[in-house]
């Protein structure tokens, strides 16, 4: 018999883990590390660009947690506090290495120019007598249960591959928005990007992922 886990239960469970961590309980520490490893690693990838550097940033973040947990008052949620530590570590690191191109410069170059969501040759010409700029090679259905297909290991690997190959600003925006579920406002604040540019980057990134999935599902 299972009861659905509601947010309240998670919060309660987390409060217990934090109390245990303050009491130096190793199992509580391991639980938290396991629980947040995935989200932290993806967030670190936003700043790092390589998996090994991202892993290091995550490690440093946990050291920051141990250093700070006795002073953490719980005014923000643990998750917010944790992510803030990671972002600070990642930024300090990239300043130190100073090889990183600032996000604003990436965003400017990636939003400049045209990047059609769909190849122009899939539409009829603008001079077509009846259907100018309408589909000539329309998208076809992804089968009866695309949601199931999209959850397959192969589809997920494909998506992961496409995300990894996106231009960096697009990758950062789509990771935070769609994979991590941040709001547009949160992303704009974190990356210091305008709402319009955030949306353009998201659009270009999503369009590329859809295009790759279409290819994977067998068109062309």
């Amino acid at each position: 018999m299972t009861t659905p886990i509601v947010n309240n239960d998670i919060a309660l469970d987390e409060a217990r883990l934090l109390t245990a961590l303050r009491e130096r309980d190793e199992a509580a520490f391991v639980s938290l590390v396991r629980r947040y490893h995935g989200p932290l690693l993806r967030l670190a990838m936003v700043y790092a660009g390589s998996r090994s550097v991202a892993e290091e940033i995550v490690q440093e973040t946990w050291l920051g947690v141990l250093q700070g947990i006795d002073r953490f008052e719980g005014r923000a949620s643990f998750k917010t506090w944790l992510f803030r530590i990671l972002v600070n570590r990642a930024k300090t690191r990239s300043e130190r290495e100073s090889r990183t191109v600032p996000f604003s410069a990436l965003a400017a170059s990636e939003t400049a120019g045209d990047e059609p969501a769909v190849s122009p040759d899939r539409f009829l010409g603008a001079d077509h007598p009846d259907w100018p700029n309408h589909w000539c090679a329309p998208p076809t259905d992804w089968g009866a249960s695309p949601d199931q297909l999209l959850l397959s290991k192969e589809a997920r690997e494909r998506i992961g591959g496409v995300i990894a190959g996106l231009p960096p600003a697009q990758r950062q925006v789509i990771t935070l928005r769609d994979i991590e579920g941040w709001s547009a406002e949160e992303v704009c604040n974190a990356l210091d990007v305008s709402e319009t540019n955030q949306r353009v980057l998201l659009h270009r990134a999503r369009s590329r992922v859809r295009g790759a999935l279409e290819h994977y599902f067998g068109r062309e």
Partner: protein
Amino acid sequence: MSTADAHEMTCKELVELVTDYLEDALPPAARTRFDEHLAACPFCTTYVEQMRQTVKALGSLPEASIPPAALDALLGHFRKWR
């Protein structure tokens, strides 16, 4: 969008407005034209549905689990800290 307002939305225009549409960032007039086009165009309906499915798939990617060596290193730090 300055010249596009007068005529019916085309498929080629629509695919560039999908994200604005899904983000609810289209001005009311453009949203109306978008909806009118969708109601008449099964291809674009499929397209918008695929964009929704794409977003949904992105939101359900599995979490990476921590490599054992990384966990060991953290436990080493933990025991020193404790």
